[in-house]
């Protein structure tokens, strides 16, 4: 009885402590990042005057760290951390990158709340992250008012740089429009006309399929849609869709599964041996995260795409990145790891170019910025802030050295080919 009461008092006290702690923090007024003791700007009499930043650059990451998407968000965070190490070794005009992460649980209201916290309490210079499209869109509107540059690195919604685009938002992942166009470009070269279009029934699935079909019919007017169907997200059993596809007798199946649907869908395709009968194309179908989970169960000969494969292109830059990543975390990066990595480098490069910690200068420098990434040159398009990055489409194959399948016959669709022309974006934005 006594112990119980003491327990209760302790609980109440610790609670009050926690609340007080959280709230008292707020009474100390503004929390502008404390200037780190940077050496006084050295006077240089050379024409190229060396710039020294008087504080570090602070970056806030808001992403989903609970639930199914974590397989990607952890990679993105780790890729970012790796890049930050590289950057800090060198410094950006004497400054380093610091960053903090917040978990938004795939909930837009939480994302907004954390974005506010990072901007107004932590005082971050740049915001990154966002697995969820809804979160990205919600935060995008907020940072527009706050004038804080924000890089979306996982949500693929085309709205981010389309109708909802503005000066402060940047997109570092092929958006749904690009993915759809890339797929259409690739598949239009094949001699087929009968298409089955399927996808997860949420914004993302519809967006990819719509763009794909629009581009496909432009490229190949003879293309014919024999079936189109969408399944609820989280569908446990794909057999009915496979039967429906089979029955319609298409030559090509284009599938846009969202998030965790990819694994069971690929399994079902493998079990039904659908890839042996027709061309099956899966958006993000050859990404490492999915294939490694499926092991030997993934179907051979299935077409799939990914913005990144750790084994392709076989360039020294890529190898260096993969080796470092593997040494650090004991695994190979999936496409999210790559995105996190180049995002950090893009931000660092923009600051280098800007030579100032001023937000507007940073954005001006970011617009049109090109850097060399493990997959070659990538460029931030000036007008809509969509990163022009290549997109890879390949075919699955068993690799004797590995216990999972990899992509082969990889074709690179260059960013310029995939990205929608400026006129299209302008039209969407009503300009």
């Amino acid at each position, binding site marked *: *009885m006594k112990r*119980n*009461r003491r*327990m*209760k*008092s302790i*609980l*109440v*006290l610790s*609670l009050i402590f*926690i*609340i007080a*702690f*959280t*709230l008292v*923090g*707020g*009474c*100390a*007024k*503004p*929390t502008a990042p404390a200037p780190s003791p940077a050496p006084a700007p050295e006077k240089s009499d050379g024409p190229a005057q060396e710039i020294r930043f008087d504080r570090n650059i602070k970056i806030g990451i808001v992403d989903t*760290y*609970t639930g199914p998407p974590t397989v990607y968000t952890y990679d993105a965070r780790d890729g970012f951390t790796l890049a930050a190490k590289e950057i800090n070794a060198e410094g950006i005009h004497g400054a380093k990158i610091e960053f903090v*992460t*917040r*978990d938004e649980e*795939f*909930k*837009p*209201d939480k994302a*907004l*709340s*954390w974005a*506010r*916290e990072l*901007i*107004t*309490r932590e005082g971050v210079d740049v915001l990154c992250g966002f697995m969820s*499209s*809804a*979160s990205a*869109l*919600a935060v*995008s*509107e*907020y940072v527009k*008012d706050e004038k804080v540059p924000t890089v979306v690195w996982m949500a693929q*919604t085309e*709205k981010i740089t389309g109708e*909802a685009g503005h000066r402060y938002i940047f997109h570092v992942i092929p958006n749904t429009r690009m993915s759809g166009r890339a797929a259409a470009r690739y598949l239009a070269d094949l001699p087929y006309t009968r298409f089955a279009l399927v996808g997860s*029934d*949420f*914004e993302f699935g519809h967006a990819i399929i719509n763009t794909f079909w629009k581009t496909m019919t432009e490229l190949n007017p003879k293309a014919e849609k024999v079936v189109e169907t969408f399944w609820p997200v989280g569908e446990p059993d794909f057999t009915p869709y496979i039967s429906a596809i089979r029955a319609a007798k298409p030559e090509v199946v284009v599938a846009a599964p969202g998030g965790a649907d990819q694994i069971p869908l690929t399994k079902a395709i493998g079990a039904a041996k659908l890839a042996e009968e027709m061309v099956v194309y899966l958006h993000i179908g050859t990404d490492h995260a999915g294939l490694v989970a499926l092991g030997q169960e993934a179907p051979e000969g299935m077409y799939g795409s990914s913005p990144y494969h750790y084994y392709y292109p076989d360039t020294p830059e890529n190898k260096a990145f993969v080796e470092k990543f593997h040494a650090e975390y004991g695994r190979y990066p999936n496409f999210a790891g790559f995105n996190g990595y180049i995002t950090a480098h893009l931000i660092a490069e923009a600051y280098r170019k800007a030579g100032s910690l001023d937000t507007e200068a940073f954005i001006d420098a970011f617009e049109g910025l090109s850097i060399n990434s493990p997959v070659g040159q990538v460029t931030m398009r000036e007008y809509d802030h969509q990163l022009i990055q290549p997109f890879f489409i390949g075919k699955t194959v068993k690799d004797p050295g590995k216990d999972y399948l990899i992509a082969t016959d990889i074709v690179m669709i260059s960013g310029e080919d995939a990205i929608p022309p400026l006129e299209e974006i302008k039209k969407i934005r009503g300009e």
Partner: protein
Amino acid sequence: MLNVFSKLTKGQFFSFKLLIIGIVVLILLFAPSYLSRYYLYLVTLILVTVLFATSLNIPLGYGGLLVLHQATFYGVGAYAFAIFLKQGTLPILPASLIAPLIAAAFACFIGWICVRLRGLYFSFLTLAMGQLVWAIIYRWYNFTGGDDGIHAIPVPDFLRSGSSVFYTTLIVVLISLLLIYIIVKSPYGLTLQAVRDNPQRCESVGINIRNHRLIAFVMGGFFAGVAGVLFVLLERSVAPPMLFWTKSVEVLIMVLLGGMFTFLGPAFGAVVVIGMMTFFGIFTEYWLLFLGSIKILLLLFLPQGVLGYIEEMMAKSAKKIEKGEERGYAQG
């Protein structure tokens, strides 16, 4: 730690409570002048949640109705307001009045069906119907924006600064709480508590218990709708997770942690839970682990809620003085 209160008698005890509330309100009134922007936002968010939690407590704490899906009305209020503003069908003032009424209408419909059932069956029917509303909003792209939600909701400029949103929220929440307080202390409120304690007896003194419960349910829905409107003012964005069932569980935990049999318990619970979420969210990646454990400890050891516990201790001390420690209280 609570020895301070042992010097208070019952009447003083009440004025002491009033004093504390007065001080809190006074502190809040000047909040924008000493709080940094983030904490001003956090306090605004807490205020919205305070209203949300208190709205749940009308049917739950006072009516004894175990509503498992209160977030439905919060979400419906927010969505209705968002859609009015986004489509520009209504100016902001009427929209902010009609949106809670729509939430109340939903509550009326759902409640009308649910109050026929007793106990847990009632609870689960509210859960099922709430999820139904969620699923429809989640899917109906053209109208509700589907899973992407609605963003960039056009709120007039004068409601865009942190302090104007704060004051609007503060005023609306205070008025709502006052209204709820008046209702709870009215004959309706008294008889509602009687219905909670002993529905059979209430029937036999001539109270239509179904009506009473329905009214409580609708009122809860209305004030949840008000909270939803305030949320939109604050965040200018809505998305389906707002009315997913886990949101309802979250707010239920707030009410229970604070204490469902005290008027300010749910409000206190909202402060506690949001405070803890922020605290752990900032300081650790495994915040769920900490939050979950603390919730378990609190629910296990303080089943009457934190404020309920504090009040009980205060009341006990006050009583001891009054009765001159005549008899010790057995602790159950």
